[in-house]
């Protein structure tokens, strides 16, 4: 998909003005306690949570330092179990590989579990263009698909929509159903989707899922879901294709168990998601069901290049969404404003890391560095620090706006010259202090319209502390 991250400011402007989106974001923040609060409650009930975070971080750091070895071991075990591993350097290579597998089994329709890698390589459009029909089955992804949108959150794809918008989309799309039917209750919407998608599951030739983990010890892929769609996607068709980026691998089943303890709690406040499924290879000789083929797409698409750089830590991300659930910027503008696959704080690091700072430079800048994301990240990823590294790259390449650069350069110039600094600040304080003395603030300040457009600027008291201090010491 074509990123619009370069237009973040305009996207954000439209998002703030979008009443329906703002209503939906209200449910995201506060509905049924909101995802942030649910996480907080789940964490409060597990005394070992912080210790588990430390272990989870250590597992991923160890794995990343030995990523090649663990990927080879994964491949060996996956192959021994009858699976096929496909190494793909780029999104294009991955797309072509998926299409080839679909063609070989004569696929007409493909069901899909939720996969952010699928979004990253834009697999749906590619399959459609090549005569294979992709059908999203996660309810949120299905809703987004029939609206021709992209997901706005990595766990809850339709979080930007109100129930009424969902109802409208169902009516517009499910035209084979009685227009007079009741659809005002969320229960009715869910049952309608369940009914329609049930047949799609049964008819699909290929099922594509993502992977929360790949396990080197056993050659296994793991998905973590609540709906059961990921399981129906992989069990029923002729072939199961797993889309996984390189950094999904962990060494052992025990390692997965450790990280699972922090994953669901961080994402939705659940102790375990309803379905955590470990899949290894195609159906065995005596099995009564299961896919005839099992393929794992190992996608690089920039990951190996991030290793050994100051951005390596983002590869620990387990896609829980806690950062965006707790980010006040995300809560203000929603996920689409970020303009690509990954929104929120993790998206503000991963997006420029994968598609470049020229396109996505706005994202790491649109942060107050409040640090809440890092404080809730189960993998202890230093998100603000990496956003700051991107700002350093932009500064060195002179990508930031001229006015801001000039202002900061002037400030730094003065701050390095205390005598001049003190003289000028005294002058500014005195002038602005006098101008603002009666009302105490400025309703309008040229050069500060961004601020005074919507809030007053408090006036200085009229003298600087330094000047007063010297005077008091002298006197």
């Amino acid at each position: 998909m074509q990123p619009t991250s370069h237009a973040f400011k305009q996207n954000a402007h439209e998002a703030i003005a979008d009443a329906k989106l703002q209503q939906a974001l209200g449910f995201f923040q506060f509905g049924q306690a909101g995802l942030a609060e649910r996480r907080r409650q789940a964490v409060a009930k597990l005394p070992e949570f912080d210790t588990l975070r430390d272990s989870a971080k250590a597992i991923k750091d160890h794995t990343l330092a030995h990523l090649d070895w663990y990927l080879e071991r994964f491949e060996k075990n996956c192959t021994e179990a009858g699976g096929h591993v496909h190494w793909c350097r780029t999104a294009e290579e991955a797309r072509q590989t998926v299409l080839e597998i679909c063609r070989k089994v004569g696929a007409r329709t493909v069901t899909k579990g939720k996969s952010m890698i699928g979004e990253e390589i834009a697999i749906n459009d590619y399959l459609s263009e090549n005569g294979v029909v992709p059908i999203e089955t996660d309810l949120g992804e299905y809703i987004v698909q029939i609206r021709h949108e992209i997901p706005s959150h990595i766990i809850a794809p339709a979080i930007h929509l109100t129930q009424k918008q969902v109802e409208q989309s169902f009516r517009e799309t499910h035209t084979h159903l009685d227009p007079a039917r009741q659809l005002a209750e969320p229960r009715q919407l869910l049952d309608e989707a369940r009914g329609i998608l049930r047949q799609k599951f049964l008819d699909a030739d290929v099922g594509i899922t993502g992977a929360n983990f790949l396990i080197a010890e056993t050659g296994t892929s793991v998905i973590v879901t609540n709906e059961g769609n990921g399981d129906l996607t992989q069990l029923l068709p002729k072939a199961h294709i797993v889309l996984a980026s390189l950094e999904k691998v962990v060494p052992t089943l025990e390692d997965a168990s450790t990280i699972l303890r922090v994953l669901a709690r961080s994402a939705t406040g659940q102790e375990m998601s309803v379905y955590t499924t470990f899949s290894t290879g195609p159906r065995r000789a005596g099995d009564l069901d299961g896919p005839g083929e099992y393929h794992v797409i190992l996608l690089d698409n920039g990951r190996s290049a991030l290793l050994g750089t100051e951005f390596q830590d983002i590869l620990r991300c387990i896609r829980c969404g806690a950062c965006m659930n707790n980010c006040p910027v995300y809560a203000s503008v929603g996920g689409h404003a970020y303009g690509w696959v990954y929104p929120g704080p993790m998206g503000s690091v991963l997006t420029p890391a994968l598609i470049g700072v020229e396109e996505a430079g706005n994202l790491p800048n649109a942060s107050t560095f409040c640090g809440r994301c890092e404080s809730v990240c189960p993998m202890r990823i230093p998100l603000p620090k990496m956003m700051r590294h991107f700002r350093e790259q932009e500064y060195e390449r002179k990508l930031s706006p001229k006015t801001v650069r000039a202002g900061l350069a002037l400030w730094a110039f003065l701050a390095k010259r205390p005598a001049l600094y003190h003289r000028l600040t005294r002058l500014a304080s005195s002038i602005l202090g006098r101008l603002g003395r009666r009302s105490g603030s400025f309703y309008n300040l040229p050069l500060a319209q961004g601020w005074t457009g919507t809030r007053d600027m408090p006036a200085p008291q009229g003298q600087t502390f330094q000047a007063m201090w010297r005077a008091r010491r002298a006197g």
Partner: protein
Amino acid sequence: MADPAPRPRVGLFVTCLVDVFRPSVGFAAVKLLEECGCTVEVPEGQTCCGQPAYNSGDRADTKALAKRTIEAFEKFDYVVVPSGSCGGMIKEHYKELLADEPDWAHRAQHLAARTYELVSFLHDVRGMRTVNSRYDGTVTYHDSCSGLRELGVKQQPRALLRSVAGLKLVELPGAEVCCGFGGTFCVKYPEISDKMVTAKTDDIDATGADTLLAGDMGCLMNMAGKLKRRAMERGGRAVRVRHVAEVLAGETDAPPIAAAKEG
């Protein structure tokens, strides 16, 4: 652990916003520090901690400012800062910034070990548990992000505020949510900043408090400016906004932030 040193020498890092906009905060800080037995000096060579340059990716200028700050302050027993964000810059970020220059890195580490945000210094290092001031009003408190997450400032201001005679403290829902100032953020993304400060002031209004306190001038100016603008547009009096040091020191003669001079 309370520090038993009889009369420690404190270097006050006053911060540019306090220096230029609200010296009364600086004097309140001095009063509190002297009350708990410190001598206070204000080195003249201080200007800015370097955070605006740092968060804009200008490491070179940040390093220059960091080195000046270290030079000006390393002779003191403690460096005390009436700001969580400037305090955090000195205490947490200088060492990382100068990590590739071993001599400066060492000096930065030593300075970091002796640098504190004001209220946490009074409470955690000097063992202060009560203040002798009076404030008649209902107060709500906003946790500035850097102070909270980088320096662990949370319970200390609340503990000391509870000892102020006449003061009633009500918790602010979402006290730990960013107010939207973020230094250059409010200039680069004013619309999002305004949305965040609107949510914050909604929460403040909902408490029914007549006074808002916090430990960082950036946050305070942002919230005070919004509260005043809303009060003007809707009618009614704006919540009074002050730096927590002013109330703890009993220095509330100066008009609140953004407020008109009375009389």
